[in-house]
Structures are given as structure tokens and as C-alpha cells.
């Protein structure tokens, strides 16, 4: 583990009955680093993310966020993180501004009104400040989710398929905003995606998960060549197929 890591995951396991959804996963995220977490459906990506978010208890293993043990100091550890996920839209019956205020208070953001204005401008949401979140388009809701995720300037940002089901232009804006966040030196990012071109463009390092284990790790730009694949997309397919072979069965 790296002492200065914003996220250290050590031998993380989660079993549901006899199924080991996450099996001894270890990795870290350094400040200023974007780490991609990829793998086929059921590989354990979201289970891993849920454990890092403190909404799912590991069967064993240890998670430290910015040096704070999540199991021992849940609230303090989660104050240093934030997340956006396509399956966790903000309450649709609150307006954009109300959502940001409520979550800003939960994260005890100082100078909250000013921070909300910054985020409304940064994510092009100012004109929707009085609009209920539930009537926003998918892209606008994604931008709102990201604005919420940036409220507390997290040391660790977790993005679970942040560009799923949105148009390429909005996806590009989102990638730009996250890379800008990292470039400003605020923290590190864990990014899950099924879009390998996006992972290659954005991530400094990528971890392939299959059947709950990290099966490959490396630079997304060089990893395909090292494993005889033409592209990261091909490598993904190769890993996914290998994971389905009988000898890989648990």
C-alpha cells in the first residue's frame, strides 16, 4: 500500500452465501491518478465501489480513504469522498439548487452558497437551478450528479459508469471536467466504464476484474500490446471470454 494514497484497498473480499463476488482485491489510487475499474457484468466492480462507499460491508479486507480506515471511522472517511453513478440519480422532487444545498450541508461544505454557484456555472446548470431534477434530461442529470460529487472537493471521487446512456458531446465534457479536477490536484478518481476507448483516453491505470478478482493491471495504452491484443476493447473481450472458460470457474 502507498502511504500517500487517497484510496488503499487491501485483500478486499465480499461473499454472498457461497458466491465470492469480490475475492482478495487489492489496489490503491494515488493523488492525481485516474484508475479505471473494468470488467464484464458481474465481475464485482459495483460491489467493490459499494464497499468503498460504505454501503456494503466487506466480508474481510481493509479500505482506507485518504489514510482513514473506513470500518473504524466511516463518517470521517466518507467526508473525504464523493460519488456519481447512473443508477443513483438525485431526488427528482427537489430542484437542482435544493439538491446541491442539501448534499452540501451533509458534507458540511464551507461557503456553500458560493460553492453552489461555482458548480452551477462549471456544469452549465445555472439556468436549471429552479428546475426539478426529475425533469432534467439524462445528460443534465449526469451533470447534476457530477456537480454534487464535486461539492466537497473530494480526495477520492468514485464514478460508476458516469457517461452511460449520454450523448458523445456530453460524455466528452464530463471526461474533460474530471480530468480538470484531477489536474487541479484535488484528489484521485476510480472510474468504472464499459467504454474502453473512454478508459484509454482518461485513465492512467486500469484494473481488469473478472469473477471478483483483479486479473490484469497496467497502463491502458500499453496493456493491449503487452497481451497481444489490438486494442483495449479486444483485450476486454479476451479477458471476458477467458473468465468464462471452465478452468476459471470458482
Amino acid at each position, binding site marked *: 500500500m502507498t502511504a500517500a494514497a487517497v484510496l488503499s484497498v487491501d485483500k478486499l473480499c465480499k461473499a454472498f452465501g457461497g458466491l465470492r463476488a469480490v475475492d482478495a482485491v487489492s489496489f490503491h489510487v494515488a493523488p492525481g491518478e485516474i484508475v479505471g475499474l473494468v470488467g464484464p457484468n458481474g*465481475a464485482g466492480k*459495483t460491489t467493490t465501489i459499494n464497499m468503498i462507499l460504505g454501503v456494503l460491508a466487506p466480508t474481510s479486507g481493509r479500505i482506507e480513504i485518504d489514510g482513514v480506515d473506513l470500518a473504524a471511522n466511516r463518517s470521517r472517511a466518507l467526508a473525504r469522498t464523493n460519488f456519481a453513478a447512473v443508477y443513483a440519480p438525485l431526488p427528482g422532487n427537489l430542484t437542482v439548487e435544493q439538491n446541491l444545498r442539501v448534499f452540501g450541508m451533509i458534507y*458540511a461544505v464551507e461557503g456553500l452558497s458560493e460553492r453552489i454557484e461555482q458548480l452551477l456555472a462549471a456544469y452549465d446548470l445555472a439556468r436549471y437551478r429552479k428546475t426539478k431534477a426529475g425533469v432534467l434530461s439524462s445528460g443534465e442529470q449526469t451533470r447534476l450528479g457530477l456537480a454534487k460529487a464535486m461539492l466537497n472537493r473530494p480526495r477520492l471521487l468514485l464514478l460508476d459508469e458516469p457517461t452511460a446512456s449520454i450523448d458523445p458531446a456530453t460524455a466528452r465534457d464530463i471526461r474533460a471536467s474530471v480530468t480538470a479536477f484531477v489536474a487541479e490536484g484535488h484528489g484521485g478518481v476510480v472510474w468504472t466504464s464499459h467504454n474502453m476507448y473512454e478508459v484509454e483516453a482518461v485513465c492512467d491505470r486500469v484494473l481488469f476484474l473478472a469473477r471478483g478478482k483483479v486479473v490484469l493491471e497496467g497502463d491502458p495504452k500499453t496493456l493491449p500490446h503487452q497481451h497481444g491484443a489490438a486494442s483495449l476493447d479486444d483485450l476486454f473481450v479476451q479477458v471476458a471470454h477467458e473468465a468464462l472458460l471452465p478452468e476459471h470457474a470458482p
Partner: protein
Amino acid sequence: MNPSRVAAIVLRQLYLYSGSPQRVLPIFAWVAVDILLWGFISRYLNGVSHTGFNFVPALLGAILLWDFLTRVMQGVTTAFFEDVWSRNFLNFFATPLRTSEYVAGLVVVGVGTSLVGLVVMLALAWGAFGLSFLSYGAALAPFLMVLFVTGIALGITGAAIVLRLGPASEWLVWPIPTLISPFAGVFYPISVLPGWMQVISRVLPPSYVFDSMRAVVAGKPAAWDRLAIGGGLSIIYLGLACLFFASVYRYAIRTGLIARYSAETVS
């Protein structure tokens, strides 16, 4: 406990109430209908009984106090249901928010909405039927306090049940006050109940309130020792309800229920 996080939970509810007459109306509309209904029944019974017994403080006062308990409970559970309905658990519980802060926020909302309902009920009962709660004397404060604490305990228990069993279990929670009312002796002394029902009555804090209320209406002094038992029981139940919620929450974290509650695409 961080006051800013408790305030955030309360503020979310205020935002919902501020733009939604359909949420504001139930705070006082149904209790107002109850007051009118039981006010006229009490007035009718006064006219036909010829016993000189005044049914207004006995029946109307009882329904007012019972509605207060119901409103307190529903204030807490409805605030919780807002997060069920908007699939907001993942957003809230993946933050620094502690369960104690979340529950405290729900309780503050329950206090606020039930007080609004209480004021409306008192005004209507006094204005339309001449029922003054001052006639209960100093016992009114412990009456309200015991019912208030019991209502919060029921509300937290209801929230825990829905958290554990899922959104469809909402229907189990709404009728809880109705299920308790026959045992609580709202309208009659518990001595009229069969023995097994009396045993249940003795462990229900409201039964001590209504017992004492009838004593005051009959011109006797309030049974302070029995009110103290009711108060003690309500505090015990509040503690147990908090432990129950915390236990269900831990179960939900252990099994992934919190994440699945709103994130049905968990892989």
C-alpha cells in the same frame, strides 16, 4: 452528532412541503375531519344520555390525543418514506451522514408536522366544541409527552420495518396505530377488556395516558405514579426502537440491501 447534517435532512423535507399542497394538507386535514366527526358524536351523546356526563372532554379529548400520537408517528415515517419513494438511500448513506443524524432529522420533522396538527386540532376542538385542554390541568404536559415519545418510537420502528422488508411493506406500517388502539383504552377503561388484552394494555404507554385522562375528566386527580410508568415505558420503547433501526441498518449494510434498495443495477 453534526447539526448541519441533521438540518440537511430537515431542510430536504421543508423543500418538499414548501412546493407541495398534497403534502401539507394531510398534516391537518384528516385530524380536522376526526375532530369534527367525534365532536358531533360527543355533542349528540351529551343530548341523548341525560346522565349529565360531559362526553366532549372524554371522547373528543381522547381522539385528539390519539390523533396527536398518530401524527407524530406518521410525521417520522412519512419523512422516511420520501427517501424510499425517491430511491435516495444510496445517495444519503454513501455520505458522512450517520444513522443517528438521519433519524434525528426524521424526528425533528415528525415534531414539526405533529405540532402543526396539534395546533389545528386544539383550535378546532375549542372553537367548534368548547373543549379546552386547560381543563386537563397540569397533567396535559405529561399526557402529550408520553404520547409524543411513543409516537416517535413507533415511527422509528415503522421506518426500520420498511428498511428491512422493502418498499412494499409500507402497508404494514400505516395501520400500526389502529392495531394498538383497542389495547390502549382510548375510549374505554382497560378494565372492560378481557384478561389477555389487559396484559398487553399494561405494557402500552398510551393506556396510562388515557386512564389518567378519564380520571381527570371524572374530577379525580391525575394518577401521576401511573403516568410515570407510562413515561418510563415510552422512553424504554424509544431506546429499543433506535436499537432496532440501528440493527436493521447494520443488516442492510452487511447484505447489500441499502445499495440494492435504490441501485437495482448492482452487478
